[in-house]
């Protein structure tokens, strides 16, 4: 019974991913991305990680969607050229091989017994992985600086007159 739930959700996610990639307009792709977020978030919740599920939903279906829409509004949603640089059969072949190999190698490694209870996220995050939190803070800081630097208007830097 559980397996069917997971299978449905994940099949839906893969289908939405494919539609997002072959979409003709980026806006459609963004909507499909939000759907993927929702489905994956549901799977994560069912696995027993509610906090991350909420994070994934709010960030994936909320923040990223808004960001993409904002970027599209600035840039303009031109129709995409469907021809791809790399011939499609080649891409399909390489990726197909990778997927098959990965599947064959990793599949037997799954242990079928679902383990005992888990430790709470809050404990782990703030005690064992404090370094992670600091790194995230640094990342956010640098991301903000990066965006500010990128999106600010060009200030003419050091207009040097030729020394004469």
């Amino acid at each position, binding site marked *: 019974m559980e397996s069917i739930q997971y299978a449905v959700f994940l099949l839906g996610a893969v289908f939405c991913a494919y539609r997002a990639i072959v979409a003709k307009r980026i806006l459609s792709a963004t909507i499909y991305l939000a759907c993927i977020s929702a489905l994956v978030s549901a799977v994560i919740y069912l*696995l027993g990680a509610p906090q991350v599920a909420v994070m994934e939903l709010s960030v994936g279906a909320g923040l990223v969607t808004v960001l*993409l829409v904002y970027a599209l509004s600035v840039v303009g949603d031109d129709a995409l050229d469907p021809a791809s640089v790399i011939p499609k059969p080649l891409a399909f072949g390489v990726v197909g091989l990778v997927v098959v190999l990965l599947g064959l190698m990793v599949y037997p490694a799954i242990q079928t017994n679902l383990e005992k209870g888990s430790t709470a996220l809050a404990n782990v995050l703030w005690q064992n*992985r404090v370094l*992670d939190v600091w790194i995230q803070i640094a990342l956010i800081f640098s991301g903000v600086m990066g965006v500010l630097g990128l*999106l600010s208007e060009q200030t003419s830097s050091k207009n040097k007159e030729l020394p004469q």
Partner: protein
Amino acid sequence: MTFTPLNIILLGVIALLGVGFYGLLITRNLIKVVLVLQILIKAVVLALILAGKMSGNLGLGQSSAATVIVADTIVAVVGLALGVQVRRRFGTLDLPKISTLRG
């Protein structure tokens, strides 16, 4: 070939990864690249949670997944800002046209 829930999820992760790689190879638009990267990250998050569940240490899996989500959001933000600037300078977002860094 046992189809326990965890196996299904593993297949789902690999499938999402495959679709994501295919998308990266196919797409020609810079914004679309950022979008496809998001798909790949979702696969990664799912894989991390799965690993946490398998080893019993879901707390660690969740904190790693949280870190990855934060990092990938910042990647998306900065990537989109870069895309906006590229559009301003080159006038187009078509990848073959903006690839001026030749070997």
